């Protein structure tokens, strides 16, 4: 086989592994952009006055949390403000997970040894995987631009926003490829990339909120995206910087790929160490041991974000109390009651269901992955029932989720206390624990998937939180019929601590979660193990 044919075969392999996710990402980014832009007139009206917009743009809290509002009086500008950061994060996360899964993950599983015994070297194989993902990001850029132009927004802004999203995704892809050369495991590479991008997002938030640190935005992909200011200034320089950053990082990844051993990273694995016997003595203890490291990472991210939320409590609520028009707009976009500290905290605590629900889904997904690559076989061959193994795992994951909720409460309370906002710890805890039923729905859905579709655990598990949240945002933004919005669990969350818990809804969700989990356990009991 000629080298060109071999190259095409590798490209096809790379494309096959990401085609489904790629199509979904293109459809979601273009679809959400088009939907919000096309329904702009019905949600915003055209009477938003310049003074109120100036006040909004000047408020540090608004800028920190939602990005700098630019050209909100146009459908394009509103769409960018409303969806830009969410879609950039979505694209980056998908892109980085796709890279670490198809490159480091395949290498770790030993499948690349076979591939690299062929004609292509590791640089060529990595390069082709990156090109395929760059193609997906390019398609995202074209689709978003096309959708925004079709919705009637000016082409100059549509091109800047589409290109910005594509380049932010591309940067995440390049960064993940670099991390995959440095770290010898998929989990290590994913964690490092998420950490760097998380710091980038924080840099964008701080840069948007604090004028003196505005330059920080030039160092963050999300900041550069905001600096293009589509539909107002339509700047190109930030996009050039972002593109250059992605190319440099990607090139570094390909250069470094040639300087390491296949199967190894630039950071060598440990050669040997004395045994750490803690948390190995039983199935639940071992489940806890595997949970601690990822839990620490998630807790750091969630804690940092909610500390910031707490610090911003007073400046945000004061602004909204002074500008009722924006309180009204925010309510329309699903952020009601922002003008009191408790209402503000309640609104942002509802968001917490998304990361914590995703955490539960991802951890149970890791359990399914361990079954698929046969790490669990030796445990299943011990005198332990399947129900006990799955039960210990699910309960440990739920306990970890409760810890995350508590971390968020303590962080928000500490932040609020530092600026003298009135948010007692008990109120913060009540607010974060209020989303526990949604998290349980995620865990229940993940266990259900583990019993019946074990290859789709993380996706099905994240659906109640991530899918429910997207559904609520879209339904609120476009004024969908009530029954559509009511499909989302978020429609049934009370604004705790501003109000009491919606007990009937909470109990319904808990019962649904338990039923899903019971069905999952039954399915897991009767099926063959995979792998």
């Amino acid at each position, binding site marked *: 086989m000629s080298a060109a044919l071999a190259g095409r075969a590798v490209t096809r392999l790379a494309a096959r592994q990401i085609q489904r996710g790629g199509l979904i990402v293109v459809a979601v980014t273009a679809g959400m952009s088009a939907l919000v832009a096309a329904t702009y007139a019905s949600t915003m009206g055209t009477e938003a006055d310049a003074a109120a917009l100036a006040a909004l743009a000047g408020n540090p809290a608004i800028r920190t949390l939602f990005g700098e509002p630019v050209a909100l009086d146009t459908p394009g500008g509103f769409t960018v403000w409303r969806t830009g950061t969410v879609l950039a994060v979505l694209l980056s996360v998908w892109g980085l997970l796709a890279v670490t899964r198809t490159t480091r993950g395949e290498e*770790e599983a030993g499948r690349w040894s076979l591939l690299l015994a062929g004609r292509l070297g590791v640089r060529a194989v990595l390069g082709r995987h990156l090109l395929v993902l760059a193609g997906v990001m390019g398609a995202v850029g074209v689709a978003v631009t096309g959708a925004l132009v079709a919705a009637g927004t000016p082409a100059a802004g549509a091109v800047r926003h589409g290109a910005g999203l594509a380049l932010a995704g591309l940067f995440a892809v390049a960064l993940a490829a670099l991390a995959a050369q440095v770290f*010898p*495991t998929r989990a290590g590479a994913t964690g490092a990339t998420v950490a760097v991008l998380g710091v980038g997002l924080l840099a964008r938030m701080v840069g948007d909120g604090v004028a003196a640190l505005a330059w920080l935005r030039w160092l963050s992909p999300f900041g550069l995206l905001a600096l293009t200011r589509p539909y107002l200034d339509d700047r190109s320089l930030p996009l050039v910087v972002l593109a250059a950053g992605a190319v440099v990082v990607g090139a570094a990844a390909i250069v470094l790929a040639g300087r390491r051993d296949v199967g190894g990273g630039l950071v060598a*694995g*440990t*050669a*040997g*160490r*004395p*045994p*750490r*016997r803690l948390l*190995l*003595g*039983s*199935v639940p203890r*071992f489940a806890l041991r*595997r949970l601690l490291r990822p839990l620490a990472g998630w807790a750091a991210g969630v804690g940092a974000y909610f500390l910031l939320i707490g610090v911003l409590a007073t400046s945000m609520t004061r602004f909204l109390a002074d500008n009722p028009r924006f309180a009204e707009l925010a309510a329309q976009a699903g952020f009601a009651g922002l003008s009191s500290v408790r209402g503000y905290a309640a609104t942002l605590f509802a968001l917490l269901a998304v990361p914590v629900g995703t955490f539960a889904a991802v951890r149970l997904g890791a359990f399914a992955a*361990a079954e698929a*690559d*046969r*790490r669990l*076989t*030796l*445990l*299943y*061959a*011990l*005198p*332990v*029932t*399947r129900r006990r193994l799955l039960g210990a795992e699910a309960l440990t994951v739920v306990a970890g989720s409760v810890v995350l909720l508590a971390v968020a409460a303590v962080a928000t309370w500490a932040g609020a206390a530092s600026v003298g906002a009135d948010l007692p710890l008990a109120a913060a805890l009540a607010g974060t624990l209020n989303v526990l039923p949604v998290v349980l729905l995620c865990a229940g859905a993940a266990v259900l998937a583990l019993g019946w579709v074990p290859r789709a655990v993380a996706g099905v598990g994240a659906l109640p939180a991530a899918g429910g949240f997207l559904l609520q945002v879209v339904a609120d933004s476009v004024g969908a019929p009530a029954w559509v919005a009511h499909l989302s669990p978020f429609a049934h969350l009370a604004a705790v601590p501003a109000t009491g818990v919606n007990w009937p809804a909470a109990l319904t969700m808990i019962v649904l979660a338990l039923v899903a989990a019971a069905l999952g356990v039954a399915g897991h009991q*009767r*099926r*063959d*193990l995979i792998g």
Partner: protein
Amino acid sequence: MSAPAIRTEALTKRYGTVSALDGLDLTVPAGEVFGFLGPNGAGKSTTIRLLLGLARPTSGRAWIFGSDAADVAAAHQRLAYVPADVALWPRLTGAEVLELLGAVGPGVDRAYRDELVRRFALDLSKPAGAYSTGNRQKVALVAAFATRAPLLVLDEPTSGLDPLMEREFRRAVAEARADGRTVFLCSHQLAEVEAVCDRVGILRAGKLVDVATVPDLRALHRTEVLVRFAGPAPDLRDVPGVGAVERGADGALRFTLTGPPGPALRQITAADVTAVSMREPTLEEIFLDYYGEQP
């Protein structure tokens, strides 16, 4: 102990329309070292997955020492398993893997485990992610033998081991047999099966085609015979059991003999025989006889 270590009754597993295992009836009495042979895809691993309750039978049942194989809490108290392709948690060291399997498993003889670690020359301080295939296999073997469980289910346990380690493996099997433990050994290393197994079961396309002791299997199969004659050689072509008759340039007659040797011997002794040599088939030849071409 009266219950057999392994008993299956019409054990059947179908994946869609493909039949992986078709009505397996097998009994392995306690204390026996049983070899389970068959080409790739014959259903050996499927059988083991069913015996361990990792897969659910389409029909039929299996028992481990009289308890239902699906009741793993009871059945697995009395067995230890080494999978064909050992996957370990990459961040746990060998010592930590042994600790986990020992704590959750059916008990462990720590002194014997330490001895096995020494004999298999296993470096327990390395994280499992840095182990080679053979080292991962050694971890699983040490964990399994050290349980002193009455039944050992071993699926291709030596495919990654060097000859020195394979010798240690045979020693460990011999020790297990001396303790009265049962070993169910799935292997392609026919010399190894021949050396350690009391009885052998042969599986083909999901069906058990033969179960016998190794000497019995030999008796059922072709023995290679070489006879030299002073005078003309007798005609053996129509004698029952005789095949592949070949006349050498030196007047020697070579043929294979299957079944009772009487008729062939009578024909030969009628002539003037100067030398006879007989060679029993190796298990490999028997195996190839079942599955394919002669070597």
